[in-house]
C-alpha cells in the first residue's frame, strides 16, 4: 500500500508543519517515507510545494511521478491547481477555500471554473473556522484534520499522537490548541 500527497501553499502558511506531522506519524507507524521540501528564496511569499510519499514498501524517488498523487493538500485554492498533473484520476483535493492575495490580479474566475470540473474536492474555510474557535495560529491543523478522513494509510489517532510529538516542546497549551483544531477539521 502506498499514499502520495502533494502539499502546496504560499511561503509562511505552514505547509512544512503539516508535512512534519504526517512524516512523524509515518515514521512511528513503521512506514517508508520520502518528503521533498523547498527551502531558500521561493519561501519569501512565493508558491511552495512539498511532496510526501508514504508506503509499506521501499520508495525510490523523492519526487512524485505525474499522475501518482492520491491527494493534493493545499493551504490555498489556486496553489492546489498548479500541481493537478500530479493528481491521480481518482485522487482528491483537500484545500483551504481562502485565496491568499499577495499578487496583483488574482484569477478568481479561472480558479472557480477549474474546481467546478474536478470530481473529488473538499474545500473548507479554515480561516473562519480558526477565528470562530479562537485558534488563530492553527488553521493548518484544521486542514490536516479534514485531510485525515482520506489518508487511509495513517489513522487519525496516529496523526494526533504526532501533533503531540511535534508541538510538545512548545508546551501543553499549544499542543491542545492544535489537537482541537485537528478535531474541528476532522469533524467538519
Amino acid at each position, binding site marked *: 500500500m502506498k499514499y502520495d500527497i502533494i502539499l502546496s501553499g504560499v511561503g509562511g502558511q505552514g505547509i512544512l508543519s503539516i508535512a512534519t506531522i504526517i512524516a512523524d506519524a509515518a515514521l512511528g507507524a513503521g512506514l517508508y517515507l520520502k518528503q*521533498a521540501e523547498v527551502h531558500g528564496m521561493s519561501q519569501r511569499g512565493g*508558491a511552495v510545494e512539498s511532496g510526501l510519499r508514504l508506503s509499506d514498501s521501499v520508495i525510490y*524517488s523523492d*519526487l512524485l511521478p505525474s499522475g501518482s498523487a492520491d491527494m493534493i493538500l493545499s493551504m490555498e485554492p*489556486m496553489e492546489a491547481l498548479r500541481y493537478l498533473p500530479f493528481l491521480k484520476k481518482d485522487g482528491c483535493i483537500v484545500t483551504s477555500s481562502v485565496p491568499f492575495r499577495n499578487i496583483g490580479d488574482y*484569477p478568481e474566475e479561472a480558479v472557480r*471554473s477549474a474546481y467546478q470540473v474536478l470530481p473529488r474536492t473538499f474545500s473548507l474555510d479554515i480561516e473562519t473556522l480558526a477565528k470562530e474557535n479562537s485558534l488563530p495560529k492553527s488553521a493548518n491543523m484544521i486542514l490536516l484534520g479534514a485531510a485525515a478522513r482520506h489518508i487511509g494509510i495513517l489513522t487519525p489517532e496516529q496523526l494526533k499522537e504526532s501533533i503531540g510529538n511535534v508541538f510538545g516542546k512548545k508546551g501543553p497549551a499549544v499542543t491542545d490548541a492544535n489537537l482541537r483544531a485537528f478535531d474541528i477539521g476532522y469533524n467538519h
Partner: protein
Amino acid sequence: MEERKLLLGDEAVALGAIHAGLRGVYAYPGTPSTEITEYIQMYESRYAAGIHCSWSTNEKTAMEEALGMSYAGCRSMVCMKHVGMNVAADAFVNSAMTGVNGGLVVVAADDPSMHSSQNEQDSRFYGKFAMIPVLEPSTQQEAYDMMSYAFDLSENEKLPVLLRLTTRLAHSRSAVAADPDLYDYRPLEPARDPSSWVLLPANARRRNQALTSAQPRLEKLSSESPFSSLSVPESRRSALGIIACGTGYNYVMENGALSSGIPVLKIGQYPLPGDRIRELAGMCDRILVVEDGQPFIEEQVKGFVGADYEILGKLTGALPRTGELNPDTVARALGKTPEPVYATPRNLAARPPALCLGCGHRDVYIALNKVLASYPGARVFADIGCYTLGALPPFCAIDTCVDMGASVTMAKGAADAGIFPAVAVIGDSTFTHSGMTGLLDAVNDRSNITVVISDNLTTAMTGGQDSAGTNKFEAICIALGVEPEHVRVVVPLSRNMDDITAVIREEIDYQGVSVIIPRRECIQTAARKARSAGNDIKKTERK
C-alpha cells in the same frame, strides 16, 4: 545503539560526520547546503562533542580553516553550495596537492533546476580537476553511511574527499538508521612534514607526481566501493544497459528498470570505474546514462567503451540537457508512454517570491528609485541575497546580479568606463564575503562609485545566520580608506525617506568612493527573536 531518525539529506551528512568523529565544520551559508552546518550547531551534545561550528566569512576561508584543522590531525568538513566551490577553488585544488592529515571532507551541494542559484554547474568536475575521490549518495541513508567511509578514505589516501549532493537529496527527508557508537575516533598527531605542506615548485612537482600516480588506485577503490554496484538480470544480456548515479538512480529504480531485465550500474564513487563500465557494455548494445547535473559521466564513458558504442543521455537528447531529472523524464528515456493526466488550468497567476512586507531593502529601493529618476545614465549593480528580488516589480531597481561581491567591482569597472552614477547594492554578509577587496580597489583608484551596504544584521536569504561583519561595517570601510565623512548610516523606514534620499543624492554627487549603510534588522529574525522572548516570558510566568 542504533536509532532511526527522520533526516534531510543535509542532516544525514551532518549526523554521519558527527558520528565519524568530526572536530570542526567550516561553511558559509548557501542553499541547498545550509542545513548541514545548522544541524551541527543545534546538535544536543555538541558542547560535549566539542565540535567547532560557527560560520566562516566565505567558502575560501572555510576551506583553508578546515585544511588547518586537518593539518593539526583532526577530522574536518567544509560545506557549501555549488557556486561556493568557485570561491574555495584555489584552496580546494591545492589541498589535493598538499594532501591531508586528519580526514577532510568537502561537501558541495549542487542545484540542478536552479531553485535558488544562478547556474547549474556540476561539482563533480571540480573533483576530477583536483584529481581526488568524489562520493555521490542516492539516499539519505547513503549520505549518512558515506561520511565515516569518506573520512576513512581521506585518511587512508591522504587526500581530501568531495561529497556531491543535489538539492533534491539535500532537501528531502527520509528515515535514517544511525549509530552514535559506530566510531571511536582518535585524532592523529599534527603534521610535521613541510616538504608536503610548503608548495614550493620543487615540493609541488613531487606532490603532483604522487597525486597523478595515485589515480589508478583511486579508480580501483571506486570499482570496489560499497556505494557502487552492478545489478544484472539472470539472462546477463540486454539491448539496453543503464549507468546511473545520485538521485538519477532513484528515478531509474522508480521506473522498474531492474524488473524489466535492464542491467543497472550504480555509480557512488569517482573516478569512474572503467572495469565496471566495460563489464556493463559487454552485456548490452547501448547504454543510457542517467545523471543529475551536467553530462559528466556521459562524456567520459565514450573513452571507456570506444567511439562506436552507442551512448544515450543528455548529449543525445534522450534526457533533457538542463534542469533536474524527475521520474517522468527518466520514464520517457526508457521508452515508456506517459498516461494522460489532468492539465494545469490556464490563466493561473504566477506567484514569484517577493521581499517581505516591512523589509528594509524595500525602503532602500524606493529611495534609490526616487533619486535615480533624475539621473538617466544611472546603473545599479546589485549582488546575491534577498535584495536581488529588487529586480522584480514593483521595484525593477537593479541592472545586474552576477556573483558574490560583483556589485562593488562591476560598479567600479563601469565607472572607469564613464558610467555615472554607478551604484552598487550589496548586503552586509555578501560585503564581508567578497565585497571588501573590491572596495579597496575602488578606494585606491578613487573611483566615482556609491556603494550601498544594505545591512539587515544577518544572512537573511538562507534563513538568518550570523553575519560576519555585524557592528564592524563603518570601521571596515574607513579602514579600507573610504573618507569617514562619506561613510553614511541611515535607518531604512518610510518616515525617514526624505533623509535617505538626501543622503543618496549627496553621495552620488561626491566625486569619489562613498558608502551608504541603511541599517535595520531583518524583520524575519526580529520576529523570531520577539517570539522566543515572548515564550521565555510565558515560561517565567508559569514558574
